[in-house]
């Protein structure tokens, strides 16, 4: 197990290095350099040169990369001219918000998807299964921004039951006024659970067809006991690894939800940065997200292996 841990950790580090190189190269693939984009049309060539020099944009790429890497390891993710703030400081306010949104909606999605998927798998091809399939498929096929705007229209504007935007301010303020979080969390959860429940359903179906289930049934054990003890555990272990893999996808969904509900988290910050060609911010976010995902999937893999001892060897081989 320790050997496996070490191997996976080393692989994770390698992955991170690749991430930084790929992103760094992507962001510096521009011919003119960021100076013109940042300073705008009124900048004179002298201003552009001064800016480039001051920020080291005129050095060769490998040099820029290593300087940047050293700074990052000291906790300095750079400075954003568009936002007039350090990237670290910007992320310090944005990341907790997104974590809250993503965390709450993922928990909600799992809490709903697991029972729904299990039910569907156990009652495969029944009326219940078909109805739930119809509902989850509709949710899955609907663009998230439309779902969000519909919910705002109905619950906030027409019914006045909930506020139309997410609460502003720091995490403490947000937690003190949670009503504004309901719609964004529900929107993201609905989109997420639609795919989760299908996965759980498929996994359940697969488990129910396994030999051990058939054997248990043949031995005369009542069906619900079968479901609970064996199928549950085996069907759920892939869900853990699913969570780890889904994190980037959920973050993408959170961008849209943040835009609709006016929640300035990391996704929205990235979109702004992409539109404004704000490299330090884009690079910083990608790095933080990648680190989070790699660590997250590492933990998920460990959880997966812990849940299913049979697979430890196979997982260890990958």
């Amino acid at each position: 197990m320790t050997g496996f841990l070490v191997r996976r950790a080393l692989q994770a580090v390698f992955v991170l290095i690749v991430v930084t190189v790929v992103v760094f190269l992507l962001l510096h693939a521009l011919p003119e350099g960021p100076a013109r984009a940042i300073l705008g049309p009124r900048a004179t060539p002298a201003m552009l040169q001064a800016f480039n020099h001051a920020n080291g944009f005129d050095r060769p790429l490998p040099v820029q990369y290593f300087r940047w890497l050293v700074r990052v390891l000291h906790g300095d993710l750079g400075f954003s001219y568009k936002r007039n703030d350090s990237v670290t400081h910007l992320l310090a306010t944005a990341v907790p918000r997104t974590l809250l949104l993503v965390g709450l909606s993922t928990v909600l999605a799992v809490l709903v998807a697991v029972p729904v998927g299990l039910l569907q798998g156990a009652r495969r091809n029944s009326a219940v299964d078909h109805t739930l399939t119809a509902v989850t498929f509709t949710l899955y096929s609907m663009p998230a921004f439309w779902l969000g705007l519909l919910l705002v229209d109905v619950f906030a504007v027409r019914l006045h039951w909930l506020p139309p935007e997410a609460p502003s301010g720091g995490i403490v303020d947000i937690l003190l006024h949670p009503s504004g979080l309901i719609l964004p969390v529900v929107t993201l959860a609905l989109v997420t659970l639609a795919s989760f429940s299908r996965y759980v359903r498929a996994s359940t179906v697969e488990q129910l067809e396994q030999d051990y289930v058939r054997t248990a049934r043949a031995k005369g054990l009542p069906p619900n006991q079968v479901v609970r003890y064996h199928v549950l555990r085996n069907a759920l272990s892939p869900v853990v690894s699913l969570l780890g893999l889904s994190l980037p996808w959920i973050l993408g969904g959170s961008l849209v939800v943040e835009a609709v509900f006016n929640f300035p988290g990391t996704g929205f910050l990235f979109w702004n940065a992409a539109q404004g060609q704000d490299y330090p911010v884009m690079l910083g976010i990608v790095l933080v997200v990648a680190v989070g995902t790699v660590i997250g999937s590492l933990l998920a893999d460990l959880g997966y292996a812990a849940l299913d001892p049979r697979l430890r060897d196979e997982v260890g081989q990958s």
Partner: protein
Amino acid sequence: MKLKALSLLIPAVLLLAACSSGSSTSASQSPQKTSAVVAEPANAPAYYIFPLTPLNNYNGLNDSYFQYLIYRPVYWIGDHGKVRINDTISLADKPTYTNGGKTAVVKLRNYKWSDGTPITSRDVLFFWNLLKVAKNNWAGYVPGEFPDNVTSVTTPDAQTIDFTFNKVYNPDWILYNELSQLSPMPQHVWDISAAGQKPSNLDETPAGAKAVYNYLIKQGNDAGTYATNPLWKVVSGPWKVQSFANGNEVTFVANPNYSGPIKPTLKTVTLAPFTSDTAEFNVLAANGNIDYGYVPPQEGSQISRINGLGFTTTRATTWSINYMVPNFNNPTVGPILQQLYVRQALEHLIDQNGWIKGPLSGFGRPTYGPVPTFPDNPFVDAQNKSNAFPFSVSQASALLTQNGWTVKANGTTTCSHPGTGAGQCGKGIANGAPLTFKVEYASGLGALDNAMQAEKSIFSEVGITLNLIPEPLNTVNANEVKCTSNQKSCSWQLVQGDLAWTFQPNYYPEGSLMFGTNGCCNAGSYNDARANELIAATHTSTSPSAMVTYQDYLQKQLPVLWTPKAESITAVRSSLTGTQPDDPFSNLYPEEWRWK
């Protein structure tokens, strides 16, 4: 067991909603009598506090929503919706001239900093000394103008500063473009080059000024400390920064020692950022936490509903013009665009009324020339108040036919009579050259998108193909560069602005920057000797006819194609008075706001 969990969720949501809806409606039903919430435009950029704003931090909103509330300029332009000097809140009397018109005398009134120290000429001189060393990094710098065209600055007494220029200039131009940039800074607090130093006269030498400037810029770059840094606690305006987060989440608190004529009644004013104008409108439509907001133009039909919720809506125009820039040096279409009759034909195809009525939902104003017709101002003349090139497909077609083109409606119009004689296409235009252009413009703006598609459709009626290229704004800005025809960067042909030019911070509506041969922002390389003469005259001539001759000539010469500009619809709670009329530079006057 599993469905039970689901069924428990619904009452839980309703319970939470019931608890919260009570608090949210109460927030909007009983307006906070001591504060107001202002909705910033979507994706508002980050604010910058130090008054010598660097180029990459400058945008109009920075002045009107932030800096001017804290640090007042000497001369305030914008008076109750009119483009003119605001004598009530300016820090000095209108300038007088001596020395044959070469010296402007600025007499400061009795204003005080928030710590009680009087605002004197020394504070203006401090600003000036820093400006001289910082000009290359300053947003308002135009080579040859402030501070280059000032030969000396003297302070005869604590209330007076004299600016001597290198020649006689038009006083209006001096006031609107140069003196308007003066922003006194608290020399008794800021004249330091490191934290903890005692303020001295470091700014009196260029090296000392540079040190002070570098230190202050460094403080200005630390947005996290805007609310706490003692430097920013000494202000001249009616407001101070109470909290500042994320670049554009700002709360101002009233300056109790404000020495101006109108004292604030509100205790705090909050600027609220929005990710998109849909998000802002959702809050407005739900009667949420906005007191001073806006209705996006595409929701124009919802105005009556917003009014019904207790808001008053008004149209607001900015001091700007909008146009489409032709690249006169583009190797393919440059020669075609250089022909005046071609530009005249194109201008005849711009349906300004249709553009405003359709894509802008009626919330827009036409641009007829280089000086804005709206808002009301003393600079626009009679000729420029009307359209010199009214919408007419037949006239456009006639102009082309008369000059050697074969017009093919819904096909491609080509040059059939090349050459430089009468009735021929013109220099550099080959036989069979088609009228095909590509136009770039900022993406994501629904109204602009629609307008461009409508124009494309109109152009095709005369056989002109317009290829539409929407791109992110920064890409448009990066592509729209002044170039010569052999350069790679000269492949752009036309760029349509959303709001091509706002006269801010250079308020005087002259065209040196956009239409002068060496103007920073003359991306299309428009080059006309007479235009240059007339532009220069608007700077130096003291006769009002200079402005008239300038705008009449340029209106007809079409250095760019004039297009309509969008207006905004302000929505303010009816019980909040003092917010109207809207300022042409979007300046906020929260010290005049009162809750009924």
